[in-house]
């Protein structure tokens, strides 16, 4: 090299350095509501030991975490809470939706269960299974690390461009109407809506 560097000095991009640090110390916020939460516990417990991947620091305060793991079904009464927790987490943050229920409602296609959290909050990684085996969750965490390394930027520019909901296109007429209504009034301030109106809970659409 033309420039003589002293020993133990590396040159890298700031993005890469940040990604390296972030991806190897994901701090999960376990949003464990149901059975999947027990498997999440199993993942962290003796046999599977999530600590091997630097993601064992479960912080129960959303303000200290950067990886939301939604484990279990989310119902009408819980969704506003989930949204608020998501908004409380500092940037950069990612979200794993663990289990069939969190991804799509799973076996619970009933009046109370939200049919997939990705309809209402952004999700980065889906883990199928009911419940997913701990190995699957480990794989998801590893995959998440790869994703952070691949796409991350130090200032979080990659988040700014994702301004559409990640959920599936609605197939339910009620939901279609709701989204149409929402688009008409241009819900620009989603965060305001989520902190203010979301906590009031659902109104009956029927």
């Amino acid at each position, binding site marked *: 090299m033309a420039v003589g560097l002293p020993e133990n000095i590396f040159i890298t991009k700031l993005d890469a350095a940040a990604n390296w640090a972030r991806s190897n110390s994901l701090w999960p916020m376990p949003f464990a509501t149901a059975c999947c939460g027990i498997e999440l516990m199993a993942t962290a417990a003796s046999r599977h030991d999530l600590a091997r991947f630097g993601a064992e620091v479960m912080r129960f305060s959303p303000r200290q975490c950067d990886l939301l793991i939604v484990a279990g079904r989310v119902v*009408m009464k819980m969704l506003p809470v989930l949204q608020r927790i*998501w908004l409380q987490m500092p940037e950069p943050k990612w979200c794993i939706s663990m289990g069939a229920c969190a991804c799509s409602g799973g076996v619970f296609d009933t009046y109370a269960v939200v049919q997939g959290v990705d309809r209402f909050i952004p999700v980065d990684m889906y883990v199928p299974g009911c419940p997913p085996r701990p190995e699957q969750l480990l794989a998801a965490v590893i995959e998440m690390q790869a994703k952070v390394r691949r796409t991350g930027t130090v200032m979080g520019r990659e988040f700014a461009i994702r301004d559409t909901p990640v959920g599936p296109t609605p197939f339910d007429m009620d939901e279609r109407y709701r989204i149409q209504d929402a688009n008409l009034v241009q819900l620009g301030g989603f*965060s305001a809506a989520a902190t203010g109106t979301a906590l009031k809970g659902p109104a009956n659409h029927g």
Partner: protein
Amino acid sequence: MVELSVLQERFGSGITEHVFRDNRRVDVPAAVLFDVLSGLKTDFGFSVLIDLTAVDWLEYEGATDRFTVVYLLLNMDSGERLTVQTALNLPNPTLTSVYSLWKAADWMEREVFDMFGITFTGHPDLRRILMPEEFDAFPLRKDYPLKGRGERHNFPVITRSGS
């Protein structure tokens, strides 16, 4: 074992009995229900209210009443079980609360109110327990669809750039 004749003598002849396998059930008119239950508790030793629930008979062929409320009782000393059932109808299904007899009835009655819209007079705190306060239907009634009426979709959406 409580004999049916004893109950009929005390609480009127409107009481009937029905036995299926080892389940014994007495059907009681709503008017005397509270008396029957408190009598069963104090004089016949049915000290435990195992469960309190309701059934909506809307789609049941041959049913005459819209709801029945079911009390499952247990005699802790002899191990005897007894089901007490009473029929109710719209538009105003109301019963007397048994909270004064069993504290366990508190939440069970709230749940029946939440799911079926049956009210209990004398209950200290009758409000929804499982569904959100704003919810205005009664989900376990048979005329409420399994998938709801779209309440579950009615939330604001948070996108990535918006959070």
